[in-house]
C-alpha cells in the first residue's frame, strides 16, 4: 500500500486517515494537524521522511502566484526542505489546473455559475488560476486579499491591480512568520461572528477561496449564496447549512467521506506516479488529473441531495 501523509499547520481537530483505491492502487491518506506549531510540523516531516511515498504540506503555502510572478513563502519553504528523501508538495502543482477546471465545470455542467454571477474571492494570490478563470468568464469579482489577510477595507476588482499590489507586498510579506498572514491552529476554530466586512459577502452570489478566510467574517445569514472552497468538514457543512448557504462546492472530490486539500491530492499523484514533482511537471500533473477524472463535489445544502 502507498502511504501519503498530509502535515498541516491547521487544527488537529480536523485530523483523519482513510484508505482509498485509485487506478487499482491502494493508498492510505493521513492528515495530521499541528495546531499552528511550525516546529512540530517540521519534526513530523523529518520523522516520516523516507517512510511514506509523498508528503503534503497543508495550512501553509510554499508559493504565491500573481500574473506569472512566483513568490516564495519562507516558512513554507522551510517545511518543504525538511523532507530530504520523500517528495513534499504544497498543492500548487495541481491547484492551477484543478481550480480552473472546477470553474469551467460549474459553468458548463451546472446552473450555479453564469457570466453575471457576482463573486467574492476572499484571497486570490493563493489560487490565481481560479481568479483568472472567473475573470475569463466575465464574472464581476472582488478579490479580498487585503480585506481578509490584513483587515483593510479595500476591495481589489481587477487582476492588474491584484498583481500590482502583490508585486509591492509579497516579496517582503512572504518572509514574515506565516502565522501572521493566515489563521492557523486554534485561530481556525474561532467563531466567525464579527460584524466586519459583511457588505462584501452581501454583494456576492458566490463566496470563493480558502475556507478559513471565508469563515473569518462569515455573516450569520448567507441565504441563497453558494461557497466554492477547498476542504470542509461535516461541521463546516452544517454551519453553512444553518446560515442559509444554498450549495457548497469543493474543488477536490470526496474520498471516504472527506474532502482533502490540494496538497494531499498532489501528494497522492506523486505517490501513484512514483515520480518526483520536478519530473512530473505541469503536463504530467495535468495527465494524472485527467486519468483520475477528478470533479468538484457539489452539495445542495437546502435541498438535501447532492447534484
Amino acid at each position: 500500500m502507498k502511504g501519503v501523509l498530509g502535515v498541516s499547520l491547521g487544527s488537529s481537530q480536523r485530523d483523519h486517515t482513510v484508505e482509498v483505491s485509485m487506478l487499482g492502487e491502494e493508498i492510505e491518506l493521513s492528515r495530521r494537524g499541528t495546531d499552528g506549531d511550525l516546529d512540530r510540523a517540521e519534526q513530523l516531516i523529518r520523522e516520516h521522511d523516507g517512510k511514506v511515498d509523498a508528503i503534503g504540506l497543508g495550512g501553509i503555502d510554499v508559493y504565491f502566484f500573481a500574473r506569472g510572478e512566483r513568490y516564495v513563502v519562507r516558512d513554507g519553504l522551510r517545511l518543504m526542505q525538511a523532507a530530504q528523501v520523500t517528495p513534499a508538495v504544497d498543492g500548487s502543482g495541481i491547484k492551477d489546473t484543478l481550480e480552473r477546471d472546477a470553474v469551467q465545470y460549474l459553468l458548463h455542467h451546472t446552473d450555479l455559475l453564469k457570466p453575471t454571477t457576482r463573486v467574492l474571492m476572499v484571497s486570490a494570490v493563493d489560487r490565481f488560476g481560479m481568479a483568472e478563470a472567473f475573470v475569463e468568464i466575465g464574472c464581476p469579482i472582488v478579490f479580498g486579499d487585503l480585506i481578509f489577510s490584513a483587515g483593510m477595507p479595500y476591495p481589489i476588482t481587477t487582476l492588474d491591480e491584484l498583481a500590482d499590489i502583490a508585486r509591492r507586498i509579497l516579496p517582503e510579506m512572504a518572509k514574515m512568520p506565516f502565522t501572521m498572514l493566515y489563521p492557523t491552529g486554534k485561530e481556525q476554530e474561532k467563531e466567525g461572528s464579527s460584524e466586519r466586512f459583511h457588505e462584501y459577502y452581501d454583494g456576492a452570489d458566490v463566496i470563493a477561496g480558502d475556507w478559513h478566510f471565508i469563515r473569518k467574517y462569515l455573516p450569520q445569514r448567507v441565504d441563497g449564496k453558494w461557497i466554492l472552497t477547498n476542504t470542509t468538514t461535516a461541521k463546516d457543512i452544517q454551519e453553512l447549512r444553518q446560515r442559509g448557504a444554498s450549495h457548497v462546492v469543493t474543488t477536490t472530490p470526496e474520498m471516504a467521506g472527506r474532502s482533502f486539500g490540494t496538497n494531499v491530492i498532489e501528494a497522492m499523484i506523486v505517490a501513484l506516479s512514483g515520480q518526483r514533482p520536478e519530473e512530473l511537471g505541469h503536463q504530467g500533473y495535468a495527465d494524472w488529473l485527467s486519468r483520475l477524472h477528478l470533479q468538484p463535489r457539489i452539495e445542495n445544502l437546502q435541498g438535501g441531495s447532492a447534484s
Partner: protein
Amino acid sequence: MTQATPDDLYAALDHFRGKVNENQRLRQMNRDWNRDISVVAKDLPDVQAWIRMRAGEMEWERQRCDDPHIVLTAPADVLIGIFQGERTPTEPYLDGSLTLRGSQEDVLRLDFVSLMIWGE
C-alpha cells in the same frame, strides 16, 4: 558611521508623512484605521514621537503618546531607514532589532502601509 540625531528622525517622520498622505490609494485603504503609534528610538531616550493615523491621514507630533495602539521600538538608524524608505521593516523585525507591540492585525497593517509606499 555617525550617530543619528533627533533631527534626523524628525526629518524621516516628515518624509514618511508626506509619502503616506500623498498616496490616494493608501488613504482609501486606511480610511477606517484610527490608531496612535508611539515611536521609541532606543538610543535617543529623550526623543518622543507620536504618530496619529486618522481616516487615512497621518500626522505626527514631538510628544509622548500615553496609550498607544502600537509601539515601534528600534535603534534610531533603523527607524530612520524605514521612514525614509531605505529599508523595509521585515528584516529588522525578523532579526529582532525592530520590535512592534500591538495587535497582530495592526502590526501587519503597519507593514502593509510601509510596503505599499516604498513599493512605488
